[in-house]
């Protein structure tokens, strides 16, 4: 099996990235990561409590997992850059997921500021994964700036609504060279499978796992769905038609002797 996700110079077997927010307890986080087999896990630097081992969420992430600190709380590119640098200085590694959100009502990302932050952080040597609204021009600029992947939202954060932005994400899959990772909005494993079937390289799931009645079980369900969706994409699904294909053609008589 050679189908690996190439991201930031790494070859990853898992195409399910996970978030660590919203869980009912920190103790459940490592179990969920294990059940999901995730190799990249994101956490908000604002939440990381470096002073207290029992409170520090990083201590609940298995060591072999790549840490993906995110810049949650940043309202501008400058704030995102400062948060990313704090994360690196604190020993969280070079990877960063840029989140620039200046809208607390819908939590929609600011693409323009995100592009700027991407440019600066790539320049600073980070592996940059920008969270964005699926807009082709913005995605092109992020990729051109050196983003390791582009992370369009499927629906607003925490809504569990699924892949509402499907048409736009499909365009990104078609046009953007770097991996497309759908982040936010995925509410059920079937949504994740659907995204993977379209050819996105990976998905990032947080709310749907963290707020399930049984997060560990849900993490496993997502892992299976992501795998199934990827397999289906690689297998090449048959074309979708708007009408049935009659087994007894109406013009068959023309061919009859």
């Amino acid at each position, binding site marked *: 099996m050679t189908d690996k996700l190439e991201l930031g110079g790494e070859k990853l077997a898992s195409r399910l990235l996970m978030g660590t*927010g*919203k*869980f*009912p*307890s*920190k103790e459940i986080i490592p179990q969920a990561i294990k059940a999901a087999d995730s190799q990249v896990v994101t956490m908000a*630097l*604002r*939440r*990381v*409590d470096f002073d*207290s081992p029992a*409170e520090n969420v990083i201590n609940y992430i298995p060591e072999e997992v790549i840490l993906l600190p995110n810049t949650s*709380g940043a*309202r501008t590119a400058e*704030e995102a850059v*400062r*948060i990313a640098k*704090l994360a690196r200085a604190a020993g969280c590694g070079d990877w960063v997921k840029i989140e620039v959100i*200046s*809208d*607390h*009502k*819908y*939590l929609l990302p600011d693409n323009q500021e995100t592009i700027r932050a991407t440019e600066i952080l790539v320049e600073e040597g980070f592996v940059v994964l920008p969270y964005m609204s699926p807009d082709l021009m913005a995605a092109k600029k992020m990729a051109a700036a050196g983003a390791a992947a582009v992370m369009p939202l499927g629906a607003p954060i*925490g*809504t*569990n609504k699924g892949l509402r932005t499907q048409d736009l994400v499909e365009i990104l899959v078609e046009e953007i060279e770097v991996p497309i990772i759908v982040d936010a909005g995925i509410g059920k494993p079937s949504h994740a499978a659907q995204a993977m079937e379209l050819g996105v390289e990976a998905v990032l799931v947080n*709310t749907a796992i*963290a*707020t399930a009645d049984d997060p560990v079980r849900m993490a496993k369900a997502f892992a299976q769905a992501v795998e199934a969706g990827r397999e289906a994409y690689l297998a090449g699904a048959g074309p979708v038609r708007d009408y049935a294909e009659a087994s007894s053609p109406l013009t068959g008589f023309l061919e009859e002797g």
Partner: protein
Amino acid sequence: MSFYDRYQDFKDLDFKQFMAGVGEQQLEEILFKQSLDWQDFLALLSPQAGSYLEPLAQRAREVSIRNFGRVILLYTPLYLANYCVNQCLYCGFKASNELPRHRLSLAEVETEAQKIAEMGIKHLLILTGESRQDSSLEYISSCVEILKEYFPALAVEIYPNSVSEYRSLIEAGVDALTIYQEVYDRQVYEQVHVQGPKQNYRYRLDAPERGCQAGMRSVNIGSLLGLADWRSEAFFTGLHAQYLQNKYPETEISVSVPRLQSALGGFAPNSVVEDRHLVQIILALRLFLPRLGITLSTREAPELRENLISLGITKMSAESSTVVGGYAVNQQGIGQFDTTDQRSVEQIKELIRGQGYQPISKNWQRI
């Protein structure tokens, strides 16, 4: 345009008459609506909606978990000084009350900070009375200089300031603002604020907006429940929060739902807010503004606080003292008001876990 204009639009509304017209069918429909308007919100505050608390609670819980997860942020207040030039009838620190007045020296601030940090607190709310002479912005900024070494997030609850004054506090290291209107009903406002700069209703009303304009990361507002009719007060609180949320989407807006507690001076509430009323207010706010933060203080009793966690609370205080220097310097002093839940931070964390929620100490880091 300020919220004052919005207040003007509604201040003469006949709340009793509006709420009397709320019917069962209307409430049933609101339960299934995606987005609520002010009429729906007010209907949820009506006496009739009091019979729908269970279905409303189910809905509010689901909305809260989706938006905030099973997570409660902890904070604690630190009173820096109790000098006050105002005469607010309900407050233990009002100018006419004879109690020892004190302002923490910077050394005392450090002692208090060490003690509070040891308790495991990361988000600190610092408070003073209204006295620009005794608790000047310079003094507060000096305290912030010390406190920011101990706490990654600092909020202020002090007298109202101008935009540039709020900016200077942000530069000093403050990231959040709490300011309660206390009471939106202007007539009652004038009755209970009998002396001092706090008599300026409008300057206080616009203070949260000035905080947003200055760049505060979060702004927390509230009405002191019990001073006037709670239904209309909760309505104005929600309306004010909505106004701020719409106009300043970059700012996290939250509300507190403080009920008037006994304090030195023995002020009797004008409106009795029972537990079930408090629940109704929290549920109505949650459904009206799904992304709104809701803060609950130690004014409330332990058992009630436990039960309110799953209804939409996002932030709770723990092991609070309302005494100036009450953590280490002066544990026997007289507080601004009486707290009811006196359990330790560790105990509060335990009870939050017991409810299936994760207590969070840190949700911001100064950058």
